[in-house]
């Protein structure tokens, strides 16, 4: 049995300049570009550079109220255009584009165009809470206080700015707070949603393009604030192969639940928060989970092997807390947390990960992870610690 890891969460940098009011969420670019987009209550989105933690560009003038969420469009090949979708409390969504001829090594952005507010997507009756592109980039999902989820598809050529509504899903009985896509496993992409009605639902399109609810996950005793799918690479680890990726959910009931295969809750992460858990993120690199919320704590969990309880039995695993930091944004609530690849010059190796948090103070912070060496059990040196 491996000894438990202990991690230290160390302040790495603050993205500058910060917003003057609440920042909601920060999403790293999924296509390997050193950029992260932050949605704020000042009606803008700030795109920061991950190389130097400085402002890269700003999306402004498109929304009348808080920008609550932002999503990068995944691209298969580099077309030289960045594309972001935004969802706002003004009930609309925006599609934004920016020409970026080359992604320059220097950090200035002078030769590139500004963000263009390409098209506004209307349809929701009230605040749009979350927007998410499917991993293939084919679909865009949005959810709202109006209890509905909309699936949009971009038709025509890239840049034609024509969108079609593929489905309007109205199974939830209250605000839909979050949506998260599962990668296509050969049977199509699946959308998971979390709601103020305390439930999680899955939706999928059939061969005829009809979308319907395929699962209802009940168990939380409060609003489901965030969802994240198990990244592919963590399941190749050791002799554990779940086949179907698992889902984690965080809630106002102060729990984080792990849902498996037939969509039963198979684990609850150790309790560390005493206020709503607004965000949780599953690392592709380490398989660790990080969470944050109203109590301002940042908590890292790791799944460990307990061993077999009987010969030939299934290997038992359990989640343990391996790192915890209180007051990540001082006295302020933290609205979002995500794992993010490091691009700054101080990184130790390619692909090294950090944590990025987004707070009510308008600040976006980067945190480095440092493993603490286990205490030596037998002191060799003279004058070592007395036992």
């Amino acid at each position: 049995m491996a000894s438990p890891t202990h991690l230290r969460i160390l302040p790495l940098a603050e993205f500058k300049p910060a917003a003057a009011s609440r920042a909601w969420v920060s999403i790293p670019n999924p296509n390997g570009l050193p950029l992260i987009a932050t949605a704020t209550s000042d009606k803008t989105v700030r795109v920061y550079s991950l190389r130097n933690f400085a402002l890269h560009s700003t999306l402004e003038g498109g929304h009348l109220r808080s920008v609550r969420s932002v999503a990068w469009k995944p691209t298969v090949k580099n077309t030289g255009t960045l594309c972001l979708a935004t969802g706002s409390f003004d009930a609309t969504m925006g599609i934004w584009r920016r020409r970026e001829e080359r992604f320059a090594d220097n950090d200035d952005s002078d030769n590139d165009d500004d963000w263009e507010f390409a098209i506004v997507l209307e349809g929701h009756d009230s605040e749009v809470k979350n927007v998410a592109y499917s991993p293939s980039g084919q679909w865009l999902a949005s959810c709202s206080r109006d209890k509905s989820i909309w699936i949009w598809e971009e038709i025509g050529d890239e840049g034609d700015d024509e969108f079609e509504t593929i489905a309007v899903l109205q199974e939830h009985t209250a605000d839909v707070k979050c949506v998260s896509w599962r990668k296509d496993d050969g049977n199509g992409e699946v959308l998971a949603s979390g709601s103020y009605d305390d439930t999680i639902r899955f939706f999928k399109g059939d061969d005829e393009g009809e979308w319907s609810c395929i699962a209802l996950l009940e168990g939380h005793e409060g609003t489901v604030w965030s969802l994240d799918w198990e990244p592919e690479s963590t399941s190749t680890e050791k002799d554990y192969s779940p086949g179907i990726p698992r889902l984690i959910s965080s809630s106002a009931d102060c729990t984080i639940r792990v849902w498996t295969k037939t969509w039963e809750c198979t684990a609850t992460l150790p309790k560390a928060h005493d206020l709503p858990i607004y965000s949780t993120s599953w690392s592709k690199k380490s398989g660790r989970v990080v969470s944050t919320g109203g109590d301002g704590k940042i908590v890292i969990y790791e799944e460990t092997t307990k061993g077999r309880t009987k010969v030939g039995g299934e290997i038992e695993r359990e989640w343990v807390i391996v790192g915890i930091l209180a007051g990540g944004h001082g006295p302020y609530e933290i609205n979002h947390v995500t794992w993010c690849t490091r691009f700054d010059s101080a990184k130790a190796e390619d692909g090294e990960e950090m944590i990025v948090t987004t707070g009510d103070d308008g600040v976006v912070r980067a945190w480095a992870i440092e493993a603490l060496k286990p205490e030596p059990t037998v002191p060799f040196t003279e004058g070592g610690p007395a036992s």
Partner: protein
Amino acid sequence: MGLDNENPLILSASELPTRKQRRKNKEASSKQHIVKDLLNAKLCSADPFDLSDLSNSDSDDSVEPIDEMEIYDLIAPISDPEHPLSLESLGVVKLQDVHLLSPNDLTNPAALSRVLVELTPTVSHCSLATVIGLGVRVRLEQALPPSYRVEVKIKKNTHSQAEEVNKQLADKERVAAALENENLMSILRTMMKPCLE
């Protein structure tokens, strides 16, 4: 539309907690009074919903911690959206229903204080319970330092839809969106006016 409660019971001033007496005592003790500072600062502010950061007030380091009475004083004068009367005189806000849980270590800026305010609606079907609760939550969030986590609930057995109202008032995102709604904000501004007088 008729009023939900046309003849609410109104408490006389002598039945209410004697705030003024308390103030006098405080001033005599020559200590800075946090809430008074705040109210004075608010008078200069054009927008009553400006974010204020009490922890940055100029008072010296020996400021005494905020107590239930001061929290009560912040919300007691809020006026009812239906009657031109204060929440304290209608018995909606009661001193004994203001609860405060302070951390042991006050020097740690990340240590959180928890405030729970239980409201007693004038009638059990009061349709404005959510608006009143929102007013109380917003008033406290904007007047108290950022390390205070405010919870506003309807007192048990006093409202037919208490659970729904409580869940709404606890939802940060709904509260944030409500504050960007101009119609609702103008109602809240009217309710808050007496707090600034």
